[in-house]
């Protein structure tokens, strides 16, 4: 690994200033579970590493009237251990619970997962499904971008060199809503998703009709995707196999997975279909108040 400077500001303004001063040669470090490895292999060679873990705004985890606020550097173990997240933003808890193992989860953040902008980042489809909004700060002020529009290519996103992701905000959850994230990996743990699917579903009071749905897909295109039509086609429909089958087909239409050593295009398309159906089934069960659905299938 090359030699570099290290700073650990405790105030957001200071972090932004250091970033602005460095003219693109600095990299923020949250958990470092992506960055350090990328520096070791030479993919990133920042001259300054700005450790943002001590900045208070980046470490919030709050559920208030306006929804859930997750600081960009808040580690996964806090997120998946949080009662509110488990109860209402379950897809996010699901994702944080499977990123790496215990050691990784105690450092890794969803901000880092998102800013790393890997197509297979596990938290991203979950955050898309929960309609997360990125709050971004830079020298010119603050702006907001939906998670679904944050990533622009493999390893690329909307952030300018002088900008930091401060937090991801999620709208409040309606009653009778449920969500789930699941990925397909060849192993049982510690693996890169071949396909990842997050979904959120809201039902009418009777629990029979879908009133809102949002689906995020991972590892099946150059960026994580919002499967907009797949979500829309569920709205107003009664819960049935045929309804879910429509969403499955709509989701498959927008994906463009590659063939690589982790799976062929055909296989990924097939598994996307399987996972969309399974994830929707679980999200729907959760929306009906059944929190823990043990659905067979790996």
């Amino acid at each position, binding site marked *: 690994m090359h030699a570099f400077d290290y700073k650990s500001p405790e105030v957001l303004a200071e972090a932004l200033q250091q970033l602005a001063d460095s003219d693109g040669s600095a990299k923020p470090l949250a958990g470092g579970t992506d960055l350090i490895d990328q520096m070791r292999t030479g993919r990133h060679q920042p001259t300054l590493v700005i450790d943002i873990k001590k900045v208070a705004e980046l470490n919030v985890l709050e559920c208030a009237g306006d929804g859930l606020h997750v600081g960009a550097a808040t580690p996964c173990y806090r997120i998946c251990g949080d009662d509110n997240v488990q109860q209402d933003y379950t897809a996010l808890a699901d994702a944080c619970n499977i990123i790496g193992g215990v050691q990784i989860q105690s450092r890794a953040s969803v901000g880092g997962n998102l800013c790393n902008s890997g197509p297979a980042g596990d938290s991203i489809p979950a955050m898309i499904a929960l309609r997360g909004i990125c709050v971004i700060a830079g020298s010119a002020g603050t702006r907001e971008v939906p998670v679904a529009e944050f990533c622009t290519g493999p390893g690329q996103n909307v952030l300018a060199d002088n900008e930091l992701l401060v937090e991801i905000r999620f709208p409040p959850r309606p009653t009778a809503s449920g969500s789930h994230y699941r990925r*397909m990996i*060849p*192993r*049982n743990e510690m*693996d890169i998703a071949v396909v990842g699917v997050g979904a959120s579903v809201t039902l009418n009071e009777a629990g029979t009709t879908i009133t809102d749905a949002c689906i995020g897909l991972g590892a099946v295109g150059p960026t994580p995707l919002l499967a907009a039509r797949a979500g829309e086609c569920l709205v107003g429909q009664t819960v049935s196999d045929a309804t879910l089958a429509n969403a499955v087909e709509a989701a498959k239409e927008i994906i463009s997975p590659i063939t690589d050593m982790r799976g062929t295009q055909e296989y990924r398309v097939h598994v996307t279909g*399987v996972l969309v159906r399974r994830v929707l089934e679980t999200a729907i069960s959760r929306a009906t108040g059944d929190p823990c659905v043990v659905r*067979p*299938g*790996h």
Partner: protein
Amino acid sequence: MADTKYSWPTREEAQIIGSRRNRLDGMEKSTGAAKYTYDVNLKDQLIARALGSPHAHCTIASIDIKAAEQTPGVVHVEVLRKVGYEIKWQGDLIAVVAAESEAAAAEGVTNVKITYNEMDVFVQDAELELARKAGRTAPAGGKSVTQVEPGDDDDEDEFVEAEIQRLYDASPHKLEGYYGIDAITHCCLEPHGSTVQWKDGKLLAYLSTQNVSGTDEAFATDLDMTSDDVEVRCEYIGGGFGSKFAADYWGVAAARISKETGRPVKFMLSRDQELKNAGNRPSGYLKVRIGADNNGVVQVWDSQHWGTAGVRGGGISQSVIPYVIQPPNYRRKAIGIKTNNGQARAWRAPNHPQACAMTQTAIDDLARVMKKDAFDVFAANLGNVANGKGDVYLAEMKVAAEIIGWKDKYHLHGQGPSKGGVVEGMGLALHMWGGTANSSTCRLVIRSDGSVESSCGTQDLGTGTRTVCAMVLAETFGLDLDDVTVNIGSSKYPMSGASGGSTTVGAVSESHRRAAQDALQILFEKVAGQLSAKPEELVAVNGAIHVAGDKKRMISWKAACSRLGVQSIEVSASHKRGDASPLSNSGVCGVQMAEVAVDTETGVVKIKKFVAVQDQGLVISPKTCESQIYGAVIMGIAAALYEQRISDPATGAFVNAELSDYKLARLGDVGEIIVELYEPESERQRGVIGNGEPPAISPVAAVSNAICNALGVRVPVAPYTPQRVLEALQGRA
């Protein structure tokens, strides 16, 4: 025979042998205190990094190391290959850069400028026709055996052809099958490498090796010194599996750099270099037709298989096809394919795991087509097992079946219920191995303060060798493990064979028991008079020496040793590989059963339960013996489900040569593993036999058979990845 005085205590007499002792270095290992070669750092050392070829097949057109030498921090650049040299696989090392820091060495490597003339590549080892067209095949032997022998006038080939065909046609049950297993690498978690120090005409090499006693010579020859001036040390090793017997050209290069610079040099291969260069297990793909009688007893086997051991061709030896179950009539033929992959090295039971995976799957398929219980079909064939130990296999099969609940859970292939698309199945496989004791010498000292210290140039591959040595000594002297000091892991100790072929436990048990019995005899002679007994009447138990059957006529171990005064007892005892001995033996069986659950929608296979029943003669240390089997099963499950060398057909590049993509099993992937040591008196009396390799043989076949039992269709080629499972289900495999 002089050897008759050596023996093991009976099960009833034994105090330590056969008892569940923790391994001596368990605490060091689990707390990270144990120093592996990778942990050895010497004062003022240089760190070396190497440049590997980016191309799989090329010649070197030019080499320019000026910029590398001028890189800040770089102290020395050692060029390993000359201009014109033909590189035959991606990653072959070309130059080594030694520098003050790892970063400087890495930067130096990027500054080594090489140009190449690229050549054609071939890496499609599963594709026999493509290999033929590319001119990459060569016959790799074969054999035919028929019960009816050709007459004097018969052309042998024609006769065999006709006879095999006749037997096949006459068989009431026929099967044609295709089975394969991709190449995997050794993937030692501690890569190959060393930290070496050349000083005052002597070389000290901390080498990650399975062979401390046999690697000094390679350093000595290259550096023009005698092996007496070389010491190879290896206290702990993070995996070798058959790939770490030699100093290797990179180890020798580190020594040269140390001599040249006068500084210690640490040179460990990077992960991708480890996977590309430091050993792999040959692939094998087999087409077979078999004919069986109405009981499922195979009468005729006719197979051809191919595969690669790398650039020199080769593949799986035809001598182990068909595996364990050897029908009365068979014809086997092997073809080797030369590919642009690194050369294979011995991998835990060379040839056997692949042979098992390619042939016992066919036996299971026979059960499938006959709609019979696989247990019964395997059992029916035990009259034709290659080692003649059908009774042992049957006994072990029954034990395994009982543990896994075969009778209650088994269903015919593809007949189990589907729960949400998940189906379960069970499969079994049999294996065999030698495990003879290697040559070994033990030097033993008993001092007047009662201390006991042994030295032996063997090594502990993580298998518990140190613990076994201590258990044998403590048992013999009636002491506890803490009372003896075991020294191993240096070429300065008396020679002991390389740890390969499951030969170590036999080797060290032989040499240590012999030395201990010899030394005890001398001590008995010293104290017999005081106890008014003959030396042969004495026994050593519970920290004392007493007259057998009369505990009152006793002297404590310490008191006995104090009589030695300044004259310690010093003995040296040896065993020579191949010599008959009452202490060790060779030839083991083994039965394994797997229970899996397969998701038919995603193709993901999960191991639910895995049972390994293993014989290995007399078990010195049950806990380390079991550990060995757990490790073997985990390794085998990885090969069954995940491990695979993936080469790009266009470039020959080894595309998954990193741990993120070269997948090993994690603990969450292996299910419940149950190990049963099969040690009835008939086995125990045979003496010690190695078990390092045998339990690594069956897992792939057992898992394949369980998957087939679940699905009702065969996934032909290991690893059984989700995609391959789905392809098989769709009839596209």
